[in-house]
C-alpha cells in the first residue's frame, strides 16, 4: 500500500521500505542526519499509514470508557491523551491517541499495522448511541517535530502553536494536535487524503526537513516510547510495559479485571531501559539478555543512540532485575556486552 505522499517521497530521495504492508521512506538524506535535525531544528514525517477512527454519538464517551484504559471523562474537549486497547486478558491490542473533538465526538489515531484488527474489535462491540467509522483511507497525517516546529505551525495556520502538549485545534485545513513520538515539541496534522500533497509541500516550504521511519524509531527509543508489535504485545499488559499512568483501574473497561489480578499477584516483569556501558555493535530487537550467566530475557527494541553514542535497548526484565543500576549483559552475535538498567527515558 502507498500513502498519498508516495511520489513526494520518491522525488525527495526517500528510500522506500516495507512497513506493515506500506511502502514508506526509511530515510532520505540519512537516519543520523534526520535524527539530529529533529533534535535541533525541525523535521516532518509522513504518518498517513496510521489509522483514523471517528466515534460519535450520545453514548460515545461511555462506550470508549469501557474499551480503553485511560479515563475519557477527564479528557476535556480540545485535548488528546494516550490510551490503550486491551484484550480480556489485559494484553495490549494497540496503543493509540484519543482526541476529544466535541462532547460527543472523538478521533482515535491507531497504529498502521493494527487498523484492521482494532476496527474489527471495536466494530463488533458497537452499541446503540454510538457511531463508529474507520476512515483511515480518507485521511493523511504529518508529524512535524523539533524545537522549531512552532515556526512551521505559524507558517501553515497563521496562528501560534499551543504551548501545551496534547491540545487539539480544528481549522479549515485539518485537525492539528500538539503531540508526537520524538520527545521534541511539535504537532501532528490530520488532513484529508486529497490535500496531503499540498500540506506536505507547505510544511517543506516552511522549512521542515523530510524524515523517515528510521529516525522516527531512534527518536522514540531514546524517549522509551513503546512501539506496538515490538515492545507491546497481546502477551504483555500495560502494567508490565510501565504504562500504568495511562490505566485507570478505578473504572470498568475490557481487560481491567486481569490487570487488577496481576497487580495483586505482583508483576512478573517490567519493560526496562538498558544502556550498554562498553563499546558494542548497535543493539537490535531479539538480542539475548543475561544476568550472572543466566538467560533472563531478550531485547524488544534496540539501537545505537545517535544522541548518546552508545547502545540502548528495551527488554522485559524479571522485577527483581528491573531496577536502575542493575548490571546485565546483552549478547550480540555470540559475545556479551555489559549493560545497565537506567531510569527512563534515556534522553532526559
Amino acid at each position, binding site marked *: 500500500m502507498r500513502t498519498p505522499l508516495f511520489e513526494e517521497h520518491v522525488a525527495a530521495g526517500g*528510500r522506500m521500505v516495507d512497513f506493515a504492508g506500506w511502502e514508506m521512506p*526509511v*530515510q532520505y538524506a*540519512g*537516519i*543520523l*542526519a534526520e535524527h539530529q535535525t529533529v533534535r535541533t531544528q525541525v523535521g516532518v514525517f509522513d504518518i498517513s499509514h496510521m489509522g483514523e477512527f471517528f466515534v460519535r454519538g450520545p453514548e460515545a464517551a461511555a462506550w470508549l470508557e469501557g474499551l480503553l484504559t485511560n479515563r475519557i471523562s477527564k479528557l476535556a474537549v480540545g485535548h488528546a491523551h494516550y490510551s490503550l486497547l486491551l484484550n480480556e486478558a489485559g494484553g495490549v491490542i494497540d496503543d493509540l491517541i484519543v482526541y476529544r473533538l466535541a462532547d460527543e465526538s472523538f478521533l482515535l489515531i491507531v497504529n498502521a499495522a493494527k487498523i484492521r484488527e482494532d476496527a474489527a474489535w471495536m466494530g463488533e462491540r458497537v452499541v446503540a448511541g454510538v457511531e463508529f467509522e474507520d476512515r483511515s483511507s480518507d485521511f493523511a497525517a504529518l508529524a512535524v517535530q523539533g524545537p522549531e516546529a512552532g515556526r512551521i505551525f505559524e507558517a501553515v495556520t497563521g496562528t501560534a502553536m499551543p504551548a501545551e502538549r496534547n491540545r487539539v485545534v480544528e481549522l479549515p485545513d485539518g485537525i492539528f494536535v500538539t503531540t508526537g513520538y520524538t520527545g521534541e515539541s511539535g504537532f501532528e496534522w490530520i488532513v484529508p487524503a486529497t490535500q496531503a500533497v499540498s500540506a506536505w509541500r507547505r510544511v517543506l516550504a516552511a522549512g521542515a526537513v523530510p524524515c523517515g521511519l*528510521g529516525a522516527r524509531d*531512534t527518536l522514540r527509543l531514546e524517549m522509551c516510547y513503546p512501539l506496538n508489535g515490538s515492545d507491546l504485545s497481546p502477551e504483555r499488559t500495560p502494567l508490565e510495559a510501565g504504562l500504568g499512568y495511562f490505566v485507570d483501574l478505578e473504572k470498568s473497561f475490557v481487560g481491567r479485571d486481569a490487570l487488577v489480578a496481576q497487580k495483586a499477584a505482583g508483576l512478573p516483569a517490567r519493560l526496562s531501559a538498558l544502556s550498554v556501558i562498553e563499546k*558494542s*555493535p*548497535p543493539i*537490535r530487537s531479539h538480542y539475548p539478555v543475561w544476568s550472572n550467566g543466566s538467560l533472563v530475557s531478550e531485547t524488544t527494541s534496540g*539501537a*545505537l543512540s*545517535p544522541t548518546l553514542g552508545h547502545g540502548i535497548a528495551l527488554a522485559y526484565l524479571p522485577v527483581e532485575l528491573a531496577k536502575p543500576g542493575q548490571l546485565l549483559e546483552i549478547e550480540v*552475535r555470540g559475545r556479551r556486552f555489559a549493560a545497565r538498567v537506567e531510569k527512563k527515558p534515556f534522553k532526559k
Partner: protein
Amino acid sequence: MNVPDDLRYAESHEWIRVEGDVGTVGITDHAQAELTDIVFAEPPAVGKKITAKDVAAVVESVKAASDIYAPVSGEVVERNDAVEQNPSLLNTDPFGEGWIFKVRLANPAELESLKDAAAYRAQIGA
C-alpha cells in the same frame, strides 16, 4: 557512483588494491550508499587467516548488520583502527581512509576471478 579503474572488485561489493603481495580491502561506494550511515565496524585482527568468500569483518548501519567477505585468501597484516574509532569513514571515503584491512595474498591467482571496474560497473548498473 565512484568505481576506480585501478581496483579489483568482488561481486559482494568489496574492493582490493594490490601492491606487491599485499592487498588493501574495503567496501565500494555503491555498498556504503546501500548500507547508509555506518555506525559500527570491526576489522579482523592482525594475523588472522582469511579465506576468499568467507566473512572477514562486520559493519553495521543504523538499520542492519552486514558481513564483509574476503575477496582473496591470506593473512591479515594490518587492520584500520581508524574505521573502528570512526565508522563513518566507510561512508565518506570508502576507497581511501575507509579501508578496512590489508591481507598478504596466499594465492594471487584468485585475483583473476575478481571483476575489473567495467564488469563491476555493469553489475551495479553504474
